[in-house]
């Protein structure tokens, strides 16, 4: 008897009991699925509810912000007044400019240094490769809190204290380990055989890199660059200690937090959040790639 014959005959032979067993299995399967969905929903709420609340407070009138109990959009009036109040507060626009400058310099420095380093650790077996990778991570394990004070002293002695450029150096040092590892994994996802093929078909190693590897890693490197930008944008501790007059936005907000009003705080929080949100939205596809899991 053929196999298909067996399958076709099964429903006819199925007894009452078989049907009940099948239904029970199906029900159990559905309950399990429902449970997973419920858990996922709870996790989403856990993350999204505060963001929604902060956004609601930032995008309503200052008067509404001060009332109690507080509501959320769309149940409260929509207005840009709170944001406008925040952005026109003293030190915010200069802080914003400083933040962008620091983040851009960090992005540029970090990517320029990390790209070759990442290429090296993903492509070459050199003596001390494992130690090098570990030491990269070790930098990350060093708390900024311990690092920042001596660094401030050094910066003062060298005469580069309270400058966005020196802060950018600090941010580069902080972001480099992550950027190197991320870019390394981006390079690792490009088969070396592609480069070899390019070399066989007439490229020098450098040409092979430019015409084959670079176009393939460009999106990944762009993602890691934006990631670096956001890390610098959000960094507050080193920024607070290494600058006094030329504060970045988070440092400025933090410095005035105690004396500031509720609308100022909410608007500040929302404003700080925007780049991260845009970043995650733009590169969500590559985020998986970053952690070594290669998705097509």
């Amino acid at each position, binding site marked *: 008897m053929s196999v298909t014959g067996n399958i076709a005959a099964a429903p006819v032979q199925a007894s009452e009991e078989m049907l009940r067993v099948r239904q029970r299995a199906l029900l159990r399967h559905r309950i399990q699925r429902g449970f997973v969905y419920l858990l996922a929903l709870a996790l989403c709420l856990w993350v999204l509810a505060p963001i929604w609340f902060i956004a609601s407070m930032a995008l309503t009138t200052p008067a509404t912000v001060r009332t109690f109990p507080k509501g959320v959009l769309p149940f409260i009036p929509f207005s840009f007044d709170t944001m406008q109040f925040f952005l026109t507060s003293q030190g915010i626009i200069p802080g914003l400019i400083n933040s962008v400058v620091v983040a851009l310099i960090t992005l540029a420095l970090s990517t320029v240094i990390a790209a070759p380093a990442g290429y090296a650790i993903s492509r070459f077996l050199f003596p001390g490769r494992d130690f090098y990778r570990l030491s990269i991570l070790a930098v990350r394990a060093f708390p900024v809190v311990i690092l920042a004070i001596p660094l401030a002293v050094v910066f003062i002695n060298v005469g580069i204290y309270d400058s966005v450029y020196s802060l950018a150096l600090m941010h580069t040092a902080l972001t480099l380990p992550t950027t190197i590892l991320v870019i390394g994994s981006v390079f690792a996802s490009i*088969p070396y*055989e*592609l480069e*070899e*093929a*390019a*070399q*066989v*078909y*007439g*490229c*020098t190693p450098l*040409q092979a890199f430019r015409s*084959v590897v670079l*176009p*393939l890693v460009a999106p990944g490197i762009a993602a890691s660059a934006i990631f670096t930008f956001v890390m610098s944008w959000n960094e507050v501790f080193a920024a607070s200690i290494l600058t006094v007059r030329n504060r970045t936005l988070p440092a400025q907000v933090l410095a005035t937090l105690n004396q500031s009003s509720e609308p100022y705080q909410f608007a500040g929080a929302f404003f700080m959040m925007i780049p991260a949100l845009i970043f995650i939205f733009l590169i969500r596809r590559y985020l998986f790639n970053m952690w070594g899991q290669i998705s*097509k």
Partner: protein
Amino acid sequence: MAAIRIENVTKKFGNFVAVDNVTLIVEDQEFMVLLGPSGCGKTTLLRAVAGLGMADSGRICIGDRDVTYLPPRKRGISMVFQSYAIFPHMNVYDNIAFGLKMNKFDKAEIDRRVREAAELLHIETMLDRYPSKLSGGQRQRVAVARAIAMKSQVLLMDEPLSNLDALLRLEMRAELKRLLAEIKATTIYVTHDQIEALSMGDRIAVMREGKILQCDHPTVVYDRPATDFVGGFIGNPPMNFLDAQVQRRDGAVEVAIGDFKLRPHPLMEPLLRGYDGKPIVIGIRAENMEALAAPADDALKVRVLVVEPLGAQNLLTVKIGANIVKVSTHPSFEVAPDQELWLRFPADKIRWVDRESGRVLYPELN
């Protein structure tokens, strides 16, 4: 003219000797297959010829040029990689044109050659597609088209068919053979598939542990293996090996398999005389034994363990002493497991293997 001369090439990875003092000459326009189990150094040797891993010592010449220290792009070679290595960010046309563009051919010539190569491989309708939209077999065709568009005098192929499914592999095998006969490039083809090697190669170099054991025409490698390893690696089923004992009786040489006495071929007698009283190994292919349903004086009685009907033949498994032996019989020969039958060993089909060295003994070589 582009013969490939590999002279005394050695390549080590740390303490591991991947290619051990290999010398091999591939004639102009010859199709040479490097065959061996994984880790035997065949790919390493190919990469040394390609310039992708420099040889530690020795010399490699292509045509009359010494290319030992030249980078891949200056060796005048094309290569098909095992993973195809076609560029995912370029469409099929640009992939095939890549080497031509890099070598600064003019536009019209590039276009002509790309279309010609694509036509040869039946992918002319896919020129503007990207690799991610192609099947494995189509990608393979693109990789081959890219290689032949260069019209290099030397074509290197690293297990090009190993990633295809069985049916497609069969089809591509014949197609590649036709194609390569047409383009007349000197080809080195690496594979671990002995059937591929037998069916495609002008000559086969069988490698093991970094050394070439035998390099000869497929029929010779199949029929007259140089060592027991070659006999056991090539052929499906592999060559059978039987333990036997050489003894002299009344001046003549006789070989005993258990109680059964075998008369070797007269040409072998002088050689076997040196093995008097010593054990020897008999090698014989499954299709070279005659299975008889009735007893005969010169046939050995065996009991059938397994019968495998394979369509064109029935494959029998029998046990002779401690050795498991495969016998191929015609499908019309009726046999059942546990049945007794008699095997005859034609004297000219028996290969005599030195037990110590594993070398097969041939009278004319001594």
